């Protein structure tokens, strides 16, 4: 259930990302689990289809995909949304029950030509990242600290916890 919720959140957030540029009923494809997955051979069939596709933005984050059986390995495509760069879609890859990749998919336009999805960095609101503060992290990344700076760093605290454990 937690896993499904996480997957749903990724996919829903992919919709949120692009909601700002989405005008009207521009959703062009439903969430469609594909069989391009991870070699385990089990993709999720159509069990998650229909989630949140009408709004593309607001649903899915609370596990609304959970009405069918356990989440399985595979590649789960998010809703396609319209952007200035063409239709855009994000996929979550689940293998062994774990998130193993997030892919920004390329789409083709109506003429069938491939559209290069922009990798441009765009603004992200602080309140979209805040909850991660309590995430269970393995290590701390940050601008280079000196040996002295290390003593006051979160990494030092984490290392202490590592020794204690």
């Amino acid at each position: 259930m937690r896993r499904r919720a996480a997957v749903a959140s990724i996919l829903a957030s992919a919709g949120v990302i692009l909601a700002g540029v989405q005008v009207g009923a521009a959703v062009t494809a439903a969430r469609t689990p594909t069989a391009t997955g991870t070699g385990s051979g089990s993709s999720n069939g159509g069990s998650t289809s229909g989630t949140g596709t009408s709004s593309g933005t607001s649903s899915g984050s609370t596990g609304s995909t959970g009405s069918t059986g356990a989440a399985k390995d595979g590649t789960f495509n998010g809703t396609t949304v319209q952007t200035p760069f063409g239709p855009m879609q994000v996929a979550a890859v689940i293998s062994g029950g774990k998130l193993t990749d997030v892919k920004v998919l390329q789409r083709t336009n109506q003429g069938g030509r491939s559209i290069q999805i922009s990798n441009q960095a765009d603004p992200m609101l602080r309140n979209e990242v805040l909850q991660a503060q309590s995430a269970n992290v393995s290590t701390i990344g940050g601008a280079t600290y000196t040996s002295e700076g290390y003593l006051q760093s979160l990494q030092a605290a984490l290392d202490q916890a590592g020794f204690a454990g």
Partner: protein
Amino acid sequence: MHATFETMGTVVSLEWSGDEQALDAVRGIFEDADHRFSLYRPDSELRQVADGSLELLDASSELREVYATALGWRGETGGAFTPHRPDGAVDLNGIVKAWAMAEAGRALGDGDWCLNVGGDVLVSGQAASGAPWVVGIVDPADRTTLLTAVPLVGGRRAAATSGSAERGDHIWTRGREGAEFVQVTVVADDIVKADVFATATVSGGTITLDDVTGRFNIDVLTVDGEGSLRVTPRMRALIAHSVEQAAVAR
């Protein structure tokens, strides 16, 4: 296993599933790199090159290899990353740490490990829980808090962060008005690449950011002087994942 040790003016934190021998190998790689490349050691090879007492052509193959690698990245970043100080002296500080991390990574092999050197991260395999390694990113405005967390998945093993605030002397910004970004994190498949692009983006600002994200398969998170964030699409999805994980954990 978990160990920390000091080298190159910073601290290495290593979590790994191997033996003490692996730790010794990693330690040796960083000590060798420090002896060869530190500009603070009067006896280092690079100091001799910087002083002019040793010709670059007479330097060790290791030093020339790192210098050549750095020159290659200078070309790739349009000069935003450079192995030269403004006075022209060779300064490999911007690449040596990442280069040594890559060497250490090769020594550690394909097992499960997480190497953190002064806030730059290179991983292999997965954490003890079986989940992906997750890198917490420090908030440059308050280093006692995390800005967010990013799982390293999909072959992206490296996360490098450069800043204009701390140890700012090792990045030479091109604009006269200082850096646009106070902190830049780059996630990539390679630690040298991640480190170079993080440094270059702090140095070159928005122009470099748009250029390198357009040409290279990397994920970027930037923080500007007002604390505003910018992210590439995949970075946004990865952050959304960790936000969700944190919410579920509560």
